[in-house]
Every structure is written in structure tokens, then in C-alpha cells.
């Protein structure tokens, strides 16, 4: 047999777990304001996340999917995007969504059981959370088809996890994106666990980036705990898409430091030691070390940031908690552009029982 096709997968990291540059830093890291802003956004996201879990534990929020440990990947990828690009998230990419202009109160509303949380005041064209795994990859590909069709210099970005790479929709999206050279970036956030199923049971491939090979598109792997690497390489992939050179798959390797959601107990299926090791390479420590080494960060600044972040989160929590339930008829009012006649009767019926649904259940 002769080799007729071959592949290799490149890996990139700029900041090692101790915050030391492992190679020359890219241009975006020369701007200290940018570096500080990236750190601020990651910190705010982490504080938001802790608060949301606390709200769930105290009965003020529904089931919530934590983003702990994913901050560099999420914030980094969104900061690489332009405002006119479109994001198709999964369901825990808060750092990315905040960077895109979604508010903390909107995210809380969503997990607090209110559809208005997906009516983003900020990025009006971004897709809402997507719970059926990897189905959003196709929406990103479709959005990219519309940009291509109109000759717009815009890109779509989808995010899914390691488990999502086993779904048909993930491969189907990459495949059409390759076939039509679509301006789209597929971001895999490999956090090693799909609820209780470890990556080793998900696939036999050495990397998830190489899933791109079957679709004939470039695939790279980056350190997902290194925000500089994520932002740099997503930026390169977006530039490529904007130039009409087609899609890119980026695997960001990180770790889910939390349970899958607040309804999950990860101690049932994974060892403490593994999580402890992961805490040593998480994204905030290295950025903080790097900023400290540059002489632009210290304990006072850290304390001030923690306080301002907590205040910002608290304000969002108040906005969320002070938002009254939408009227009962709102469940009918967005089904179609115009309410079909037969639904009017059911709408009237729901309104008759009003906000309490007539009182007791079961």
C-alpha cells in the first residue's frame, strides 16, 4: 500500500500553566490594556458562575450549567470575533456571551425559567443557548451560508463540547462547510467529560481536532486554558473565513472543574485527584502570574477587581430577582407571528386561571 493522504495536527500554547511565555507572544498580547481586560472578563465570569450556583442552591435559580474552568476558551473566542459575526453557543458559554454583549441578568433569567433571557438586548443576531447537543453547529453553518450568499464579510462561530463531536450534526456541519467553503469556525471545548463519560470512551482519536480531516477542513488544537492562544488562533481562523478561504475546526483543551450542572454529582464518576491536577492548570492562575510578572498586577488590584466584579454580579442578580414573571399568555404570543384562531381559545383558557393556574397541583 502507498500513502495517498496523510494528516498532522498542530498544537499551540503561548502561556504555560505557570504564566510563563512558552514562545514569543502574539501581537494581541503586547497591549497591556487588552491583557487586563481579558483577565477582568474571565474573573467576572468566574464570580458570576459561583453566584449562579449559590442562587441555585438557595432555591432562587433553576438547574444551572457551570462554566468553571472554561473562562479562557469562552472569553478568548468571543474577543476574537467582530460584532457583526454570529455566535451559536451551547449552554455554558457565559464568558463568550458577556463579551458579545449579553447581560448577566439575561443569563440568570434563562436559567431562572424565563424565555426573555434569550431575547438578548446586545447581539441581536446571535443564536440562543442550544441544549440538543451539537445541533447548533448546523445553525452556524447555515448562518455562514447566508453571509456567503450576501457577500458579507461576516463569520459564524459554533461551540460544542467533546461529547458533541460524536453527534452526526457536528460532522454534517463541518462537511457542508468544507464542501461550500463557508465562513465558519467550529470550536470544540474539550473539557474531558460529557456528564459522566470521559473523552477516552467518546472516541478513539488522539485529538478531536483531527475530526476535521474527514471533512477536508483544517483542524488545530490549542491550550484552552490559555486565553492568548484561544484568542489568537480563533482570530486567525476568522480572518481566514473572511478572506473566503473556508471553515476551521479548533479544539480547545480545557477541563470541566465543576459538576456537569447543579443537578449532577461528579464525585460519582471521577476521582478527586484528577480534578486537583486540573486546578493547577486552570486559566486564571496563569494569566494572573503573567500580569504580575509584567508588573501590571498586584494583590490590591486583584482585591479591587474581585469587589467590582461581585458588585456587578450582585446588581445583575437584583435585576433578575426583581423581574416579574411574564404574563401567562406570553406562552402563546410568540408561537407564530400571528396567533392562529384555534389558539385564541386556549390562550383565553390559560388567562382565565391566571398567574396561579387556579391554585394547587397534585
Amino acid at each position, binding site marked *: 500500500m502507498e500513502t495517498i493522504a496523510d494528516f498532522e495536527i498542530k498544537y499551540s500554547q503561548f502561556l504555560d500553566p505557570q504564566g510563563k511565555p512558552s514562545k514569543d507572544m502574539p501581537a494581541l498580547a503586547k497591549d497591556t490594556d487588552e491583557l487586563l481586560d481579558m483577565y477582568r472578563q474571565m474573573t467576572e465570569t468566574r464570580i458570576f458562575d459561583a453566584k449562579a450556583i449559590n442562587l441555585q442552591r438557595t432555591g432562587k435559580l433553576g438547574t444551572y450549567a457551570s462554566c468553571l474552568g472554561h473562562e479562557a476558551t469562552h472569553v478568548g473566542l468571543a474577543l476574537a470575533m467582530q460584532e457583526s459575526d454570529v455566535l451559536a453557543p451551547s449552554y455554558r458559554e457565559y464568558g463568550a456571551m458577556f463579551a458579545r454583549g449579553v447581560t448577566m441578568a439575561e443569563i440568570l433569567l434563562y436559567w431562572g425559567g424565563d424565555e426573555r433571557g434569550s*431575547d438578548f438586548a446586545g447581539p441581536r443576531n446571535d443564536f440562543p443557548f442550544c441544549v440538543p447537543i451539537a445541533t447548533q453547529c448546523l445553525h452556524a453553518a447555515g448562518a455562514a451560508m447566508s453571509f456567503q450568499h450576501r457577500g458579507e464579510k461576516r463569520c459564524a462561530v459554533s461551540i460544542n463540547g467533546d461529547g458533541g463531536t460524536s453527534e452526526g450534526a457536528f460532522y*454534517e456541519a463541518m*462537511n457542508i462547510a468544507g464542501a461550500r467553503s463557508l465562513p465558519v469556525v467550529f470550536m470544540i471545548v474539550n473539557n474531558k467529560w460529557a456528564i459522566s463519560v470521559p473523552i477516552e470512551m467518546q472516541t478513539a482519536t488522539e485529538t478531536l481536532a483531527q475530526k476535521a480531516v474527514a471533512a477536508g477542513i483544517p483542524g488545530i488544537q490549542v491550550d484552552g486554558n490559555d486565553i492568548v492562544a484561544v484568542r489568537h488562533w480563533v482570530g486567525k481562523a476568522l480572518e481566514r473565513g473572511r478572506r473566503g478561504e473556508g471553515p476551521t475546526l479548533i479544539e480547545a483543551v480545557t477541563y470541566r472543574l465543576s459538576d456537569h450542572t447543579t443537578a449532577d454529582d461528579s464525585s460519582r464518576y471521577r476521582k478527586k485527584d484528577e480534578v486537583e491536577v486540573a486546578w493547577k492548570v486552570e486559566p486564571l492562575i496563569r494569566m494572573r502570574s503573567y500580569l504580575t510578572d509584567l508588573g501590571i498586577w498586584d494583590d490590591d488590584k486583584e482585591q479591587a477587581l474581585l469587589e467590582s466584579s461581585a458588585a456587578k454580579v450582585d446588581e445583575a442578580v437584583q435585576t433578575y430577582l426583581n423581574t416579574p414573571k411574564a404574563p401567562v399568555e406570553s406562552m402563546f404570543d410568540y408561537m407564530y407571528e400571528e396567533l392562529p384562531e*384555534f389558539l385564541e381559545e386556549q390562550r383565553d383558557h390559560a388567562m382565565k386561571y391566571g398567574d396561579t393556574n387556579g391554585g394547587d397541583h397534585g
Partner: protein
Amino acid sequence: MAEVSLIDALTMAMSWELEHDPDVVILGEDVGVNGGVFRATAGLQNKFGEDRVMDTPLAEGMIAGVSIGMAAQGMRPIAEIQFMGFIYPTVDQIINHAGRIRNRTRGRLTCPMVLRAPYGGGIHAPEHHSESTEAIFSHMPGVRVVIPSSPARAYGLLLAAIRDPDPVVFLEPKRIYRLHKQNVEDNGKALPLDVCYILREGTDVTVVTWGAMTFETIKAVDQLAKKGISCEVIDLATISPIDYETILESVEKTGRLVIAHEAARSCGVGAEIAAIVAEKGMYDLKGPIRRVTGYDVIMPLFRREMDYMPSVMKVADVIQESMQDG
């Protein structure tokens, strides 16, 4: 005005809309150079270019998913699924996303797309090509299901479906794609959705039907007219949501209801019509509501497919049975 078949009328409607709305695109398997396996898109790629009429990779879930992505960003995709038997991979996307995106974003994003597919039996097709499973999509809130039964309604209803601001599953009774021709003016005029069409006015029995089964029904009704039985034939046309008012008004007049559909009986669309008439029109009825439908079995391969489906005689027999009431 041209005399055209049902499938020609569909091509005309898509051509009109491609010409008049730059946001409209067609995508699917073999829809381009080949013009679709039934030729519904014949000539359209040649006329409007590869950017507007796109052959896609072979993955139905993908076709639905990228259509939703396009529609959410302001385009109006018309997606073709080659046969109803291959539509099921789209169900995830249609149910979880197409029908929900307006509601879950409070109207921020919408999904003005059409998912077209030929459906139904009677053309001696291979396995998985002949089922009538319109009820699956009819159960789904947020999605319209539309079925034409003549060239004129195919033209007008497809235009309406493309222009509708919400997703429409447009199912085409392929047995009557070329069964008869009709004069259809290519004037870009849509017909209303969400309403039934009365094909025959009558006073004794209301017969509700749709798609290809309108042909068996009309034949049966014409035979019975000679015996002095006057039937009102209603083409449901929009299968979901159902225009109950027209049906209830007719039942008020006739006092008898027969529902004829090709799909299997249990949990079929006929069951919903029967339930509504039982709820709201019970006291107008002179006797039980009757259904003549496909059986609750797997659609047989083609040696026996016609025996599965309601024939003219089966429809006529049930109408005559209903005449014994009251």
C-alpha cells in the same frame, strides 16, 4: 394562462419567488442540475444560478439545520427532502429548533423556511418511499403543515408557505404530481393558509380529506350523487393548524362527518378532527363520526400498496354507511 400539472405549478411558484425575492434560495439533494428526482426544481438552477439553487451533501438533518440557520439570519430557504421516508433525520431540527426559535427568543429570531417533501403511496416506489406521516409534524407547535391537492392550490399555497414568517412543512402528494392539469395563472398570487377549501358543496354528508385522497373522494362523491346523496367535500389543505370553523359549519349543515386520509388511522390527523367535532359539534351530528384511512400497519411494498389505501369504493361505502344515521 398555462395548463400545468401539480408539479409544474410548484416549479412555477418557486421560480416566481426566486425571481421576486432575493432572500429565497432552494437547497437539497439533486435539486440543481438534476432538477430534483421528481423534477420539481427543473431548470431553476440554470435560470437563477448555483448560488440560489444549491445541491447539498446527502444529509437530511443537515439540510434542515442549515436552513434554520439561514432563516434565522433573514433568508427564506426552501429545503427539499427527497422522500418522506428520509425526512426523519430532520425531525430533531424541525421540532427542537424550527418550531421553537421564535418562541424561545421572544421573537428576536424567526424561522421563515419551507421544508418540502413528496409523500404518500401509489407510485410503485421502493420501500420507505410511500408513507404518509403528516401527523408527526402536525403534533408540533410552531410548525405549519400544508398539503396541496391541485395545481392551482399547489401554486398558491407554496407561494404562501414561502412568504409565511414561520416554518412550513409542505408535503406534496406525489401520486397526483402529474395526474391532471389545470389552468394556473403565473401571477405570484398566494392562497391563504390556515383555511380549508370546499371542493364540492353538499347537504347530506361532510367529507374531510386532503392530498391525493381528494381524488378518490371526489370520484366516490360523484358516484353517490347519482344515487341522490349530496356530499360536501372539504380539502383540509393546512393540516396544522386546522381550520375547524369551516368543518364545524359544514357539519352543522349536514349532520354527518366522514374523514378520509391515506395515513394510518391511530393518532392520525383524522382523530384530531373527530375529537374537535365531538367536542364542539356533537349535537349537530346525526350519528357517529366515521373514518376511512390507511391501516395501522407498515405500508406494504407496492404489490399490495393500493390495498392499504382507501379506494373509491372504500370511501363510498363509508359515506353510504353514514347515510343510515339520522
